[in-house]
């Protein structure tokens, strides 16, 4: 599959003009293939958000290059083309809703693209149905719950029909139910709509369903692999200030007390099966 996003020796520094520039990213090489479900993990200040912001030209590299579907993000002519290829959802749902009516907000992106009215209408309806908020289309967003607001924000991005969506800690301000809804929508978009997903998070269990996991630390990519490959390295993750999903933690702790269980049972079902086969012989 073709790469939808590719970074080449991407370096970024904050406060570049001051005496003490802070390096956020140093020489990061990442390629994300079309249709992939990628999760980027890292603790606060690891550079994961800065990295995400390069994927739709919100931040521009200080060194190196970022290509979105072959387009160089530093080319200002391509800015809107890049942003409609790669949409972005942020942490706080309140701060990304523009309009006072749900459907008006979802329409905001397509309106900016200058599409025909009919096309905007059909995209808005489709997007709202995809996130399951169609019946709320005429409601005021501020009366909805956090999870519902975040679904509206996702719909606002889907309505622009991007090929890739970057979600920067989209669940960190939501309650467990809202969190589950958003994760289900993300999987659905990836599996059934073929949209490339880049999910930034520090909740380990959100990475369980990913195709690939990248761990960032101090502006560098320190680990890369499938969720199973990553989460079995419990000690290494702990040394980076990260935890592992509770399933792996349970198995790891059991192993510490003398058992010999495989650590790669990362989903709840797999974990239950592993334990069952061990103890119910």
């Amino acid at each position: 599959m073709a790469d939808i996003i590719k970074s080449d020796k991407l370096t970024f520094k904050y406060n570049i003009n001051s005496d003490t520039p802070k390096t956020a990213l140093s020489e990061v090489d990442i390629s994300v293939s079309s249709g992939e479900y990628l999760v980027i993990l890292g603790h606060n200040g690891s550079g994961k958000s800065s990295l995400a912001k390069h994927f739709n030209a919100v931040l521009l590299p200080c060194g190196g290059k970022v290509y979105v579907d072959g387009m160089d993000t530093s080319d200002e002519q391509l800015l809107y083309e890049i942003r409609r290829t790669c949409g972005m959802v942020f942490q706080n749902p309140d701060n990304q809703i523009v309009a006072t009516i749900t459907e008006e907000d979802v329409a905001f992106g397509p309106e900016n693209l200058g599409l025909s009215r009919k096309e905007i209408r059909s995209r808005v309806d489709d997007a709202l149905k995809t996130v399951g908020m169609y019946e709320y289309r005429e409601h005021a967003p501020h009366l909805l719950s956090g999870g519902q607001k975040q679904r509206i924000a996702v719909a606002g991005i889907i309505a622009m029909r991007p090929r890739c969506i970057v979600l920067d800690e989209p669940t960190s301000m939501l309650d467990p139910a809202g969190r589950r809804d958003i994760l289900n929508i993300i999987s659905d978009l990836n599996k059934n709509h073929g949209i490339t997903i880049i999910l930034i998070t520090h909740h380990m269990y959100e990475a369980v369903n990913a195709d690939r996991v990248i761990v960032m630390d101090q502006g560098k990519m320190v680990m890369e692999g499938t969720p199973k490959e990553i989460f079995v390295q419990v000690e290494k993750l702990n040394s980076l200030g990260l935890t592992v999903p509770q399933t792996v933690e349970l198995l790891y702790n059991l192993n510490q007390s003398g058992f010999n269980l495989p650590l790669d049972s990362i989903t709840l079902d797999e974990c239950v099966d592993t334990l069952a086969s061990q103890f119910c012989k």
Partner: protein
Amino acid sequence: MIKDVSLGQFFPGNSIVHRLDPRVKLVLTIVFIIALFMCRGPVPYAIMAAFLFTVILLTKISFVLIFRSIKPILILLIFTAVLNIFYATGGSELLRLGSVVITTGGIYTAFFMVFRIILLVVATFVMLTYTTSPIMLTDGLESLLSPLKKVKFPVHELSMMMSIALRFIPTLIEETEKIMSAQKSRGADFETGSIFRRAKALIPVLIPLFINAFKRAEDLALAMECRCYHGGEGRVRMRILKLCPLDYISIIVSLSVFILAVILSQILTFGVLI
């Protein structure tokens, strides 16, 4: 205490008045006010009042609410009445207390002045703010002002700012309440003391509120940019305002009433005071 702040005082509904195009309502309200100032004598005023009365009936908003809307301007009304009773002259003398003279002309003017202000205020409420959602009002204004784009007046920016302000008012109210609760839980006192003391107690509320508001503004700007916002140029609105037969009918009916009232006041002025 903050929850009582009602915004734009919009009463949602589905009456004929609610369904009218906001532009029609805006223009008709302005024309109503102009016509009101051109009216002279009891009959034209009665026509205008009857028109307004019909509109109120159509909106299905209770009269109690309408009367309540006059309450804030009560002082203004009394002031106007008193001033006119003492200063307007004409007609026969009713009462003389030293240099103060009260004439029938004075009372007559005072009465019509007060009546005019009441009609004016009620008309704006009923025809505009009570029956038009703030967002519709903004859209209507944008559409009405759009010819000014030719002289480089930032119409789109203005309406965008207004609608974002409307969008964030409930969010900021909620936030203010949260901050106040947090301060109260640490012993802050907002309810007792002199007005200065209470105003001073609000400073620790306002500072975090402002800082957060700036932070929100930054986030929102970023989110808008990510959704390809680049000003009004090349932007297509999904929902456009479109005049329907109901709008045309109400324009024709209202304008005929206004014109009738103005013409009658021109004809009937002879022989009537003022």
